[in-house]
């Protein structure tokens, strides 16, 4: 544990990345303070500069100009060796993906010993305080994501880091795991650790002592009082009356069984019956591994059902439905790396020979979904959230009967999430049946109908 809580602050911080397609201005003169011994949430749309701010704060990246103070040390002026010392002794960094915080061949206890330094001793009681004491002798891949993330925080604290920086630590966790992680964070903050967390997660924002909001690389605001995350009004979302008998696609008594090596049998889907109707935004809500993605894959024709059937309106071939029948936004976004953001969005129209016809729509779409500024960049030059919005825009570029979106807001802040659902709503209004798989219950409010998935079974959510 740190002896004294350490504050951090940035003064006129600028970070610019040079890319083949030009300069990307990630931070444009940000000045702010992170209170010592407090939890600060850094929020903002994807691409707003949150990750850049955290990387500069930890000395992983270097500021283009401006100053960054961690305690008495100006990180921006530190040598490479000084930055290493800073990362080793003062600032701990927790990666977004829980498993990224571990070396695969060391147990959790060994990680803590390593973090304590070669001559130090590891106080493993912190694991108890974080509720994972029984996992000390386990290898990382034997822990759940939430446990891994708590163990990662434990490492940072055992290392004596007075400041712990975490980039979206709950982005890949379901709500229950998230809660456990944030409980652990609160425990550490209470013991004097300064926490800076970039997040899109409303629950994390509510837990924070202070919220710092970035937009387009600039400080938009800082609040002592947590907000509920609703900054942008999406206006009224129109809903068309939906006729259940006129489903664009429906699945009946669908079962999908996977046989793994070693004889394991996984029942990914069990007797699932589901339909997506034109004009409707239907949600498949459930934890990771509940079968949501498998169901979307079966509908998209990428998996064959073990039993049951998929029925398409208008005689579409269920084994290989064309893009005009079903546009898909998979979790692995599948953007063409060789095409710019704009070219990616326009790609389906191009292949359909409708580039000119759809050009105005595509331009409008790019603006609506918030990727206009980066239309000339390659996907790798955009944040994950921006890439995800690009994939959604691509799915909306030409009209389709059905649109399947797998976790479309996993990397979106509240504003961007609302933009995404506004765009999906417009597609639904135009007659597309939109099915969204998500573990984020905060987006339920955008959905016309919610189906809950658990252990491969689907049930209608009584709230809808």
């Amino acid at each position, binding site marked *: 544990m740190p002896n004294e809580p350490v504050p951090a602050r940035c003064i006129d911080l600028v970070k610019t990345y040079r890319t083949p397609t030009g300069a990307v201005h990630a931070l444009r003169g940000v000045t702010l303070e992170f209170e010592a011994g407090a939890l600060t949430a850094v929020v903002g749309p994807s691409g707003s500069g949150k990750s850049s701010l955290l990387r500069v704060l930890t000395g*992983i990246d270097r500021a283009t100009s401006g100053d960054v103070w961690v305690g008495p040390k100006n990180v921006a002026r530190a040598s*490479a*060796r000084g930055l*290493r*010392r*800073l*990362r*080793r002794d003062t600032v701990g*960094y927790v*990666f977004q993906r829980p498993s*990224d*915080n*571990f*070396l*695969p*061949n*060391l*147990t959790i206890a*060994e990680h803590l*010993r*390593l*973090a*304590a330094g*070669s*001559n*130090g*001793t*590891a*106080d*493993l*009681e912190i694991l*108890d305080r974080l509720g994972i*004491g029984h996992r000390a002798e386990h290898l990382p891949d034997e822990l759940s994501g939430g446990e891994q993330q708590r163990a990662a925080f434990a490492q940072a604290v055992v*290392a004596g880091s007075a400041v712990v920086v975490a980039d979206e630590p709950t982005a890949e966790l379901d709500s229950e795991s998230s809660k456990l992680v944030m409980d652990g964070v609160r425990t550490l903050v209470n013991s004097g650790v300064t926490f800076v967390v970039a997040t899109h997660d409303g629950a994390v924002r509510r837990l924070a002592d202070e919220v710092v909001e970035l937009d387009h690389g600039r400080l938009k605001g800082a609040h002592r009082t947590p907000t509920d995350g609703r900054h942008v009004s999406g206006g009224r979302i129109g809903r068309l009356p939906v006729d259940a008998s006129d489903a664009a696609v429906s699945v009946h008594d669908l079962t999908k069984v996977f046989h793994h090596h070693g004889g394991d049998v996984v029942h*990914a889907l069990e007797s699932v019956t589901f339909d997506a109707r034109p004009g409707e935004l239907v949600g498949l809500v459930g934890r*990771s*591994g509940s079968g949501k*993605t498998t169901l979307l*894959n079966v509908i998209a024709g*990428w*998996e064959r059902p073990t039993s049951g059937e998929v029925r398409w309106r208008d005689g579409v071939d269920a084994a*290989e439905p064309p*893009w005009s029948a079903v546009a*898909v936004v*998979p*979790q*692995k*976004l*599948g953007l*063409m*790396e*060789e095409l710019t953001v704009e*070219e990616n969005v326009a*790609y*389906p129209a191009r*292949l*359909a020979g409708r*580039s000119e016809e759809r050009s105005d729509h595509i331009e409008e779409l790019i603006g609506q979904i918030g990727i206009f500024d980066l239309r000339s960049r*390659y996907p790798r030059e955009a944040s994950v959230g921006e890439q995800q919005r690009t994939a959604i825009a691509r799915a909306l570029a030409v009209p389709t009967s059905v649109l399947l979106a*797998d976790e479309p807001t996993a990397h979106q802040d509240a504003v961007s999430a609302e933009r995404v659902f506004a765009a999906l709503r417009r597609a639904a209004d135009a007659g597309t049946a939109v099915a969204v798989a998500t573990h984020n219950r905060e987006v339920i409010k955008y959905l016309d109908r919610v189906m809950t998935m658990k252990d491969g079974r689907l049930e209608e959510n009584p709230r809808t």
Partner: protein
Amino acid sequence: MVKGRRRAGSPLWAKAPFALVQYPGLLAAVVVGALLLSLVAAAFPLFLSRSESELLRAEIANPTVGRFGAGLFYSVTNVGFGEPVREGDDRLLTEALDEAFGRIAARGPHLGSPIRFVSGATAQVTLPDGTSPESGRVEGTIFSGTEAEDQVRVVSGGAEDGALVPDLIADALEVEPGDTIRLDGKLDLRVAGTYEALYSQPRSGYWSPWSEQIYPQCFDCPAPPQYILVGPEEAISLSRALREGDQQDVDHGWVAPVTGMPLDADEAREVRAYTERVTARAAERGTRLGRLFQCCGQTFGGSFFFGRRDVEFRSGMPSVLRSVERRAAAVEGPLRLLLIAGLGVAGAVVAAAAAFAVAGRRTEAALLHARGWGPVRFAARSAVESAIPIALGAAVGLAAAWVLIAWLGPPAPAAAAAQAASVTAAAAAAAASLAILGVVTAVSFIRAFEVHALKRRLAWVPWELLVIAGALWVLSRLRAGGAVIEDPALDISRPSSLLLAFPVLLVAGFAILGARLLVAMLRRAGSGLGRSSPAPYLAVHRLTGLPGLTVLLMGASALCLGVFVNGQTMVGSLRATVDAKAGVFVGADVQVSIDYAAPEQERFPLPITRATRLKYAGELLPSGTPFDILGVDAATIADAAYWDDSFADRSLEDLAAGLASDSGPLPAVLVQGGGEPTAIRTAQAEIPIEVVGRADAFPGVSSDDPVVVVDAHSLEERVDVQGNPFHSPNARTEYWIAGDPQEALAAVADLEAYPLGTLTLEEVKDVPFIKAAIETFSMLNVLGLGAALLVVGVLVVYLQARQRARAVSNILSLRMGMRVAQARLALALELGAILISSFVIGASLGLVAGRLVAPLLDPLQTIPPAPLFDAPLGVLVWTAIGLVVVAAVGAWLVQRRASAVDLGEVLRVAE
């Protein structure tokens, strides 16, 4: 519950030595890299040593050398039958010498028990009644040598109770075993057996020290007196009897053959060093050995007799080793190139493993970076992780080197020093692997994670310009005479390694620059592909979307293909040049020297022509320039003489046709000469000439002076015998014969003229420098081809990996309406564009490099023509076709593998 504190210590370091077990791919890469490095490094000294030993074996196996010729030889002439060592030492000199030489041989490394020989008197041989053979006088030399009877082919009888007589004598006298012959009419000798006379047998090692006494010294010389083999005592007593008196003499000698065959080169060097030491000591009068073996100088005198004593202490080993080392030098150049290439490839594998250690374990590296690790610590960890695999790989590489060289290398043994060197090299390879791994890991870590101002600055350095500058510097060195390195120790010339560095640097620099420009042009062109079909649209965007990678792939492909084309060009040019020069020098395939006065050849089974050449024949008028003259037979030269179209802008037939003329100025072809000569002035006459043709080279021209080629008959028509320069004693007359050399040499016996000597094209081309240069560039050629194939393979594998990594976008594309054929075409266009562009860039640069360097490699400078340039057009066309096929097949393979991806599984994993 966790119990309090745990002991200190870093589990990361403790587990590091076996950490790679969890990464089989990386582990394999490290082991294979170290194995390759060790294999190449360890194999080099072994192979070189075995090559030397094999060359040594071949040299010693040469019948003119043999084990006896390569060993230690001592002979002394005119030793008196009862001659003591010296005053005060009454031992017989021959016995003292026998004892001393035996001691020297016993102490010497790899020297066997000496044989002793006595070469006695030469006597006329007749029947006991004094009858000589009808064929004329026949002579024999009394000879005794240890086990000499075992070294001849006995025809009848044996060596017991009498002499072994050569069949040359026995047949002439018609004697058989049991008969008696008489020597010099006064001494009878029983014939115990007969043997096939040595002069008519193939040379063999045992007799090699006496070749000059056994074999005829010229083409039509009679056979020297052959040996009558007797025992040593008998040889002395016979010689004493023939020479009448104790004061007369015989020649004595000892030969210690080399033993322990096959010798390796180091053992041979030990023999050389020992024999040189002994010979030097024996040549010093101040030493006891010198006094004994030199026998007080090379002359000795008495009151009434003044004679000459020849002493010879020698070993053939120095010349054997010199020949071995000269030939090994020709092998060493390409072998060293192979070593460098092999080390480069192996080093690249180790470096790739190191880069993979960062890229493939990026998450770990990022974590450690975030925990405050620096490049040195990270590299140290990688080194600790890799130490055991590297040691293992190096040990296996060493073992593999020994097995492979023993299996595939020359069969002769490797020297002990080479074996030790190979072990040292393997250890050094292991250390180098660790060093490479550490350095590349550190650099990769810095590149991936560290923020250095220097890194940003270095990223903008146009490295290719530095490489081009390096190429130009190397070219300037080559032009300043650095193309050939003289080795005064071996008296040979070697091609400089700068000759290899230049094409590599030139092609690498300009290839990267060209690739960069091409990608920039493609990027511009890509913006104009708005309405094009998906295949070119995608191909162009893929090429320009990751410009750095495209430039790297194009640059690497262009470099390999360029080196390949350059190697082909250089080998082709060198061969063409050497062929042309050898053809010019010899005149045709075989040259036979004859006398100018020899009769004309009326008929011959092969095309033949006659020519006479005279250097420094006189002056050209009016300029006064010295010239050589070549007289040819205008009627036959075009059929038989070597000709290359680059020699002149007219054919040889045309030129020859203009030479024959009975009147007027003498028609002449002027070779290598400028101006407008109107006459030639020789020592005897001034002859008006008319230049009817010019050439840069001409058969029979062997200097860089102007040469006047005339028809010999036409010249004879215009001058008398005294005025004919071809009657000069310095003139050389030859027949030039076209056709298979063996056939031509066999047909020489049909010549009406007496052949004074023969020369073939291959004999002229058998120059170590030429062999070394051709072998070196051939090796470069092979390496370039191998590297090009490797790059093509890597490209295809890369595209496959990329397409698999992009499985989601590929399958989405197909859903969006792209056809499989279009996807395949896009890949083919991408791969084809990289390969064909690389080929065009690389081949052009390879040709340019060859054009610049080929003129600097003049293997036989005094013989025209100047170095020729031979562009390998066939290779270029076939390579281009091959690359198009590779692009099509590669695209098909890549698309097939990409289509086999189970997208459902990929997406489930993402979930």
